[in-house]
């Protein structure tokens, strides 16, 4: 009779064999002395190894574990910063200031002799003195911003690098 695979005997010994497999193995064991001997060896080793009894950990281990766990922090709630009214005031103040400046500048510019020669052009006629001064201020502001942009950009990069 061919011997059974030892793995199958191991499955039988530890109760992991399926019912048909178990039935087949038991039938085989009834007629095979070598396989019976292997099962007896497993039984002997099982008894031997069981002579190392179980131990118990220290009683306060769970408390130690919990004591070392940091307390749960409440979930951070997303808090929106309240809107500040300052930028609105600043913009409003700047606009009023610019309008007043343009208003006074346009009354002055219309007195200049150069204005008469400029007033001949249709674009100046369309803009009027107020529109012309506003355009001039806008041009000056754009020029200053573009001139300063590279300086501001490189200065910001330099600060970032040093920090």
């Amino acid at each position, binding site marked *: 009779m061919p011997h059974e695979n030892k793995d199958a005997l191991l499955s039988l010994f530890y109760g992991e064999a399926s019912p048909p497999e178990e039935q087949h193995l038991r039938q085989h064991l009834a007629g095979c002395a070598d396989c019976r001997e292997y099962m007896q060896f*497993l039984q002997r*080793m099982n008894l031997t190894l069981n*002579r190392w*009894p179980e*131990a118990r950990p220290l009683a306060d281990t769970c408390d130690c574990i919990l004591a070392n766990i940091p307390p749960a922090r409440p979930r951070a709630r997303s808090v929106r910063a309240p809107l500040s009214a300052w930028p609105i005031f600043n913009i409003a103040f700047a606009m009023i200031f610019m309008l007043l400046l343009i208003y006074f500048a346009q009354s002055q510019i219309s007195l200049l002799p150069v204005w008469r020669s400029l007033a001949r052009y249709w674009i100046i006629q369309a803009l009027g003195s107020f529109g012309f001064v506003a355009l001039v201020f806008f041009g000056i502001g754009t020029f200053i911003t573009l001139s300063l942009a590279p300086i501001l950009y490189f200065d910001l990069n330099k600060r970032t690098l040093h920090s």
Partner: protein
Amino acid sequence: MVLEKNLRAFRILYTRHETGIYNFIVRYTGNKQIAQDLLQETFTRVWFAAHLFDHAGGNFRGWLYTIALNIARSEMSKKRYAYHYFEISEIPHKDEPRHPRSEAPDAQSEQADLKEAIMRALEKLSPLLREIVVLKHYQQLKFKEIAAMTRTPEGTLKARFHRALAELKTLLEPMEL
């Protein structure tokens, strides 16, 4: 419940598994002090990694033993235990009576000798063989569970178990067990 960081649930879980995990580590490392520390580490990791467990269809026992096994493997691979790890707490002090009065000295002595012999025999096995003996024989895990835990084919595990038993038999033969 543990996922929700419930202390009471954690205590229940700990009480249910403490002895199993502790004995697994004691038998794997052969040292009660290390086992005590690693037991704490295992459950601390359970607390923090509870969200990683597959609650739908996962095997908690297998997951827990995987954590313990990984911790024990990592600890044992450290250089300080590579050569030898002997349980110092097991060595009786010279002035200390070896057997308590309540038990017969011969029986107590025999039990201690047997335990020490098994411990030493397990210690002499390679880590992989010791691991399978402890997980299969002492912790009564199924080969399928161990295969999933260690990502090793069942056939390989069974072959290792046969080899481990054969080596243990040779090592324990002088004790006439």
